[in-house]
């Protein structure tokens, strides 16, 4: 029991600073979007509420364990109910819950508001890779786990995976978006259900065959953000990373031009609906 408390205390002590990708990472990343920060704030709010309640309840249990021991001559009291007390500990939790529900509802409304986006990217899950299609431009490509990771992840490959940069979290063609733009992501899948997740963006959403889901993010800092498929999708579920490169405006524009140039060269393959066509595009780069 003391152990549990120690963990809770340890957890509480380590909460504020969390360097993402530090080895003994304890907490959720704050992330780089408005939504991820709101979600992180909510997460911390509930966590602290839980920690406080835990201290009170566990404190009362531990106090009883220490104080009312038969071996120390404690004599049991005879009370077995108290309507007043029970009403109190029914009503107070309800009040706390309302206090948590209000900010949660506000954030949720914000999350669901996908209007006024600057860019729309359609993401399709395949067993086991992602396909990105920029609906406002004529760009689309597959994104598959990179070769180093793929070689090292084979059964008894004999490769020290610690020597590989971003093991299992690197792809050949990352999704690229401009910094500060509201990116609307449309999600669907070609075979089974997948789930598109980048922890630094605070969001994941399922990619479901036959249906289109929506989500959005607006990344404030340029950088490379990594995540994975989160919904079990078969044998290689662990091997379909999500990598998003957030670039400054000009670099993004340059990337766009480069892609479109290639798209023109590969006009036949630009309408990527089949696997084979996608391979051609991927190889062309």
């Amino acid at each position, binding site marked *: 029991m003391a*152990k*549990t408390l120690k*963990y809770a205390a340890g*957890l509480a002590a380590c909460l504020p600073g969390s360097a*993402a990708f530090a*080895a*003994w990472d*304890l907490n*959720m990343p704050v992330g780089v979007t408005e939504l991820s920060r*709101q*979600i992180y704030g909510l*997460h911390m709010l*509930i966590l602290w509420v839980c920690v406080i*309640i*835990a201290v009170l309840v566990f404190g*009362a*249990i531990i106090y*009883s*364990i220490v104080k*009312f*021991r*038969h071996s120390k001559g*404690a004599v*049991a*009291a*005879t*009370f*077995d*109910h108290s309507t007043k007390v*029970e009403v109190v*500990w029914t009503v107070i939790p309800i009040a706390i*819950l309302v206090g948590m529900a209000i900010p*949660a*509802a506000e954030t*949720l409304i914000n999350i669901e508001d996908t209007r006024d986006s600057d860019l729309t990217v359609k993401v399709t899950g395949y067993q086991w890779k992602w396909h990105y299609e920029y609906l406002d431009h004529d760009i689309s490509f597959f994104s598959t786990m990179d070769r180093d990771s793929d070689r090292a992840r084979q*059964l*008894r490959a004999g490769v020290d995976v*610690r020597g590989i940069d*971003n*093991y*299992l*979290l690197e792809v050949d063609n990352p999704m690229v978006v401009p910094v500060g733009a509201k990116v609307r992501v449309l999600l669907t899948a070609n*075979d089974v*259900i997948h*789930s598109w*997740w980048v*922890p630094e963006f*605070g969001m994941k*959403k*399922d990619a479901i*065959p*036959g*249906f289109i889901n929506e989500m959005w993010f607006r990344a404030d800092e340029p950088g490379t953000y990594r995540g*994975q498929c*989160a*919904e*079990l999708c078969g*044998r290689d*579920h*662990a091997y379909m990373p999500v990598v998003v490169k957030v670039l400054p405006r000009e670099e993004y524009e340059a990337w766009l031009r480069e892609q479109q140039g290639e798209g023109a060269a590969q006009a036949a393959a630009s309408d990527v609906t089949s696997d084979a066509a996608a391979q051609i595009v991927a190889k062309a780069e």
Partner: protein
Amino acid sequence: MSTVQAHGVAGHHADAHDHHGPEKGWRRWVFATNHKDIGTMYLLFSLAMFFIGGLMALIVRAELFQPGLQLVDPYFFNTMTTMHALVMIFGAVMPAFVGLANWMIPLQIGAPDMALPRMNNFSFWILPFAFTLLLSTLFFESGGPAGGWTMYPPLALQMGETFPMTIFAIHLMGASSIMGAINVIVTVMNMRAPGMSLLKMPVFVWGWLITAYLLIAVMPVLAGAVTMLLTDYYFGTSFFQAAGGGDPVMYQHIFWFFGHPEVYIMILPAFGVVSEIIPTFSRKRLFGYDTMVYAIAAIAFLSFIVWAHHMFTVGMPLAGQMFFMLSTMLIAVPTGVKIFNWTATMFKGSLTFEPPMLFAIAFLFMFTIGGFSGLMLAIVPADFQYHDSYFVVAHFHYVLVPGAVFAIMAAVYYWLPKWTGHMYNMKLAKLHFWLSTIFVNLLFFPQHFLGLAGMPRRIPDYSTQFADWNLVSSIGAFGFGFAQLLFAYIVWQSIRGGAKATDKVWDGGAPQGLEWTLSSPPPYHSFEVAPEVK
């Protein structure tokens, strides 16, 4: 069925007329109709499944011991996580509670046996066949089921020849559960001793009565869901296939309409067990008996209107997300009342710490931790991060292992001397408790960190930043697993012999309830004369 069979004299034992004694040899078990024999079989079956499911968990944790793929193919890894869940839920936890119900309900309500003894036999003997069927798929060329125990389509439809076997096994398990539930309801409703009104029943009986209704309500829903999968696969229906006009998300709605009450099916009897044990070793009556009963009923009701919180990421309308968030948060209220009332029972009591009490107190702490993470998961925006990550794995294992499984162990340590007539080795049992408690936290607590840091569940290999906590978790898993061998040894020892247990067993404590008025072990027909409850 009359409640009172007032012939014979009090204390009149079954051995007076031999034809009422147990059959000899294998016939005693195969043709068993006695609630105690069937209860024993359920419990031993559950223990066997606990070890088989545990072995699968250890294969999973061994592969996750370090990054890189060292031991098994990813497909086999998925088979292990899938099978581990099915075996533990339907083979270990549920049968353990049915075993406890069989043993204890007649003893606690003053009945001679369960109301429907032949159905009781049938419902048990289905299980070995169901699990033989399920486990045999491991030896198929195509491998066992690997789509997760939730069997979401379209992935579930890629299963291959293991698919119909798995579904048939689930149908059998469901049929067995429904029969067990009917038996509990009929027994509790019709066979209580004179004077035992509903609100005088022990909380364990209450927990089970409500669980039984949940089972009857939701097992057919599961059966329906998997049958639709089956027709999608073989008969060209498109319930869940978008290409044919179906909806894969509908499966998830139906599945979790079963799945969420299922969670409470595994925890309400545990609430009952803890409500029996804490008063005994606090030497004080349960605080707020009526509220405890109402809280169980409230949780059971709420369990039907929260299912979609398992699937917030499928893209529901805003109003739907709001509703399921609020209804889920509401569950914290009756659950909180239960935790507070148990605490109030211990407060100003006179506590001793026998093994059942140790497990009950550990339940109180660690089930509450699982409750907290459950509350966090209810908050939809935060759930978008937690969902399908190791945080969820940590959450439900806290509720199920140091929650339900610890309650089962508490129950076994509480009633084992009543069942076998022998005390068990208290020192070893306390050692088993401490090993289990330390290792179970080492096993599951770091999984919170892994999930928050971004590790998805159900992956056989992970990026190197997750390596350290996975290593700790795996060490915890092996420690916890091996500590359970001690449990099996303690139980076996108590069956073989040991100091004679008195009728009351816990003479130093204050055990309530009719089971303590019978001899240890109780006579063959438990209460031949219905006791009078004042």
